[in-house]
């Protein structure tokens, strides 16, 4: 019943809100012409949604969130799928604005409104009493009710509806009074007709010329009287019907405009205004109102139908408001908000809704604002904000189930990050097309993903890659490995080229090894200031034989020179030995090697040199 009332309230033509709220699915013409919602890539697709297993062709149901379905935007036709219907985006905003206006409005707790409420209740109690007792309400009482209603129409809360109802009652009473007057007139005409008939009969007995003239006159007059009588009767029927239609249309209007008190008063006063016992609704067949009233019972609507609907709505609103107070007392803001939305939607003008305290409104407004922001953030795919809002909502309502919100958000974030990772891989592999595809997908899933900024930086670097690659090639050709090493992050992009990648790795390895070795040798030289430099020098020379590229490194060269100076005698002995060898003075060469071994007995270079020269000396013929 409640759902039907809401549906009726949302019917077009009833009020601006109702028009604004009208689901697209309820407009057959639009429904038929509108193409099925396209699966836009930008539309957020919730993984948790799904069509029923037994009907693969059915549209997947919207997932529920925050106790409500998540409105999903379909950009192809600017509609939102929500609560089983499709709503226009702009209109949905109007609905939200209406509720927000209520939340931010001031409760009407004025003395005037209190008196108004009291008087309305008094009238309701009065008509209810006569409804139960089946006693007729006299014309004087009806007039009194009308006067009271006229006085209430000046109260702002009333919105002039009491005046309209009073006018309806007075108009109906006037019509009844006019009908009675015409009925009395017809009685008089009847008497006159009887009198004329008797006179005519008497005249007919004596057939004179004069009498014949009088008979004709009387006959004509009787005909006129009968015509007047028929006219009065017809006017009565017409007037009765017009009064009923006017009264009933206003009665239905009260119901549709959610003025349930007025609808109840009007329906219960009806049988006291119109005494013919006919309480069927004189509304246009198959009109929206007729369909709505018929839909409640399936039978032709009556005045009692309106009475029942209005009473049901009043009770429902009061129950919702009780629930709102109860939920707020338990800090269950989610449920309180849900009940308040329904109460406002059904009975916006009910006293219990109008007088809802400002503190309660503020709390609900805060929660409502967060929920609205959550939905907006979801539609905008701003998952960072979604997480923040979920945390705030949880702090406001301990029973708020944030698991779905958070898991959905986390899933989308992870999905977006994965795309960015794939984009980076594609970037390193030099696959522009794959990079663009992955980065677009990542942005589509989570447009505000902070990692997208880093990817943009990578992209910029990727654009500059050609110059970086050229620079790397030049530096590598010049054997300026140290420069490459120092800017290794900038040159990381050369890995896109397999050949350069190998060179890059080699450079990093060589320079890293040199640096590690220099650090170690520095420690050795510090520990033993006599042999330490000899050890360091020899290690550097030995490394040069295994890795000739180190000879181009400035740090290596500096270290070699430094240790050569510190181990001057040792180095000089080795160099002299080499020179002597070149001059083929092997005796002197061997003596130099011996000298070097004296300075550094574990010298590999001197040992090897001595061994080599000794061998030459021994094998020669003298």
């Amino acid at each position: 019943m409640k759902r039907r009332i809401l549906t009726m309230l949302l019917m077009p033509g009833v009020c601006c809100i109702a028009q604004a709220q009208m689901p697209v699915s309820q407009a057959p013409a639009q429904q038929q012409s509108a193409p099925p919602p396209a699966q836009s890539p930008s539309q957020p697709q919730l993984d948790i949604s799904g069509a029923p297993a037994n009907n693969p062709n059915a549209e997947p149901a919207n997932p529920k969130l925050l106790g409500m379905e998540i409105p999903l935007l379909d950009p192809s036709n600017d509609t939102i799928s929500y609560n089983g219907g499709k709503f226009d985006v702009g209109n949905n905003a109007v609905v939200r604005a209406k509720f927000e206006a209520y939340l931010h409005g001031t409760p009407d707790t004025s003395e005037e409104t209190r008196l108004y409420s009291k008087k309305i209740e008094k009238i309701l109690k009065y008509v209810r009493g006569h409804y139960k007792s089946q006693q007729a309400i006299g014309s004087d009482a009806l007039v009194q009710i009308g006067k009271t209603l006229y006085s209430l129409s000046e109260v702002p809360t009333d919105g002039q509806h009491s005046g309209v109802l009073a006018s309806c009652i007075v108009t109906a009473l006037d019509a009844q009074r006019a009908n009675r007057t015409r009925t009395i007139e017809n009685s008089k005409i009847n008497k006159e007709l009887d009198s004329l008939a008797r006179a005519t009969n008497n005249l007919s007995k004596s057939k004179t010329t004069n009498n014949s003239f009088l008979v004709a006159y009387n006959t004509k007059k009787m005909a006129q009287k009968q015509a007047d009588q028929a006219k009065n009767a017809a006017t009565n029927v017409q007037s009765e019907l017009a009064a009923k239609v006017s009264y009933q249309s206003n009665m239905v209007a009260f119901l549709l405009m959610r003025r349930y008190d007025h609808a109840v008063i009007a329906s219960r006063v009806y049988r006291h205004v119109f005494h013919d016992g006919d309480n069927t609704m004189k509304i246009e067949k198959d009109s929206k109102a007729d369909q709505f009233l018929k839909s409640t019972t399936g039978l032709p609507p009556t005045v009692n139908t309106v009475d029942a609907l209005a009473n049901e709505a009043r009770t429902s609103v009061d129950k919702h408001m009780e629930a709102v107070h109860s939920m707020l007392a338990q800090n269950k803001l989610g449920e309180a908000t849900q009940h308040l939305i329904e109460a406002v939607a059904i009975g916006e003008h009910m006293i219990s809704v109008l007088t809802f305290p400002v503190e309660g409104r503020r709390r609900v407004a805060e929660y409502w604002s967060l929920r609205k922001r959550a939905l907006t953030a979801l539609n905008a795919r701003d998952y960072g904000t979604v997480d923040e809002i979920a945390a705030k909502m949880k702090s406001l309502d301990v029973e708020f189930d944030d698991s779905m919100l958070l898991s959905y958000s986390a899933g989308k974030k992870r999905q977006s990050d994965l795309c960015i990772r794939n984009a980076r891989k594609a970037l390193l592999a030099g696959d522009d097309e794959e990079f663009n595809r992955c980065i677009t997908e990542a942005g589509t899933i989570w447009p505000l993903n902070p990692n997208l900024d880093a990817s943009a930086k990578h992209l910029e670097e990727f654009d500059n890659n050609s110059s970086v690659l050229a620079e790397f090639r030049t530096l590598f050709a010049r054997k300026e490995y140290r420069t490459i090493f120092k800017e290794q992050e900038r040159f990381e992009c050369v890995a896109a080229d397999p050949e350069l990648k190998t060179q890059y790795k080699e450079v990093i390895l060589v320079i890293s090894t040199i640096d590690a070795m220099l650090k170690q040798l520095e420690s050795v030289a510090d520990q033993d200031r006599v042999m330490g430099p000899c050890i360091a020098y020899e290690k550097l020379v030995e490394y040069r034989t295994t890795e000739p590229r180190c000879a181009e490194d400035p740090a290596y060269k500096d270290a070699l020179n430094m240790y050569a100076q510190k181990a001057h005698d040792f180095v000089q002995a080795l160099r002299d030995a080499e020179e002597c060898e070149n001059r083929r003075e092997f005796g002197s060469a061997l003596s130099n090697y011996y000298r070097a071994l004296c300075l550094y007995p574990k010298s590999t270079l001197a040992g090897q040199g001595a061994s080599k020269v000794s061998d030459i000396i021994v094998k020669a013929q003298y």
Partner: protein
Amino acid sequence: MVIGGVVLLAGAGFFFSSPSGKRSSGKPQDFSIREYRNDGSRMAVPGNRYLLEGRVENIETIGNSRIVAVSLKNNRNERLPLLVAKDTVLDVNLTRKDSFLFEVECRTGRDSSGNEVKGILVVKNADSTK
């Protein structure tokens, strides 16, 4: 005065024409290993003979030949390599850390390719200093 100058030049010429020390004779000669290292060709003139007193610091045997590293009295931090050829028979048995009088001759040899092997001090004889 002129005669004195001629005598001085002659004396200087004699000094520079031979390595430090005298040719092999009955007394050990003052031999500079440092000079030998630095300028072996001037010190080790083929055919020159020296009598050196040195301590055996190391003996390296290669095949049947030996290379003996000796230190001289004037500088124990230097080593002078002496070749004891395979066919050389010495009067004493060379042992490490013992001093000997070595009679050596400076020789230039040839390797298997015919290239020179200059400035090799070949031990002709050795005698114990004890």
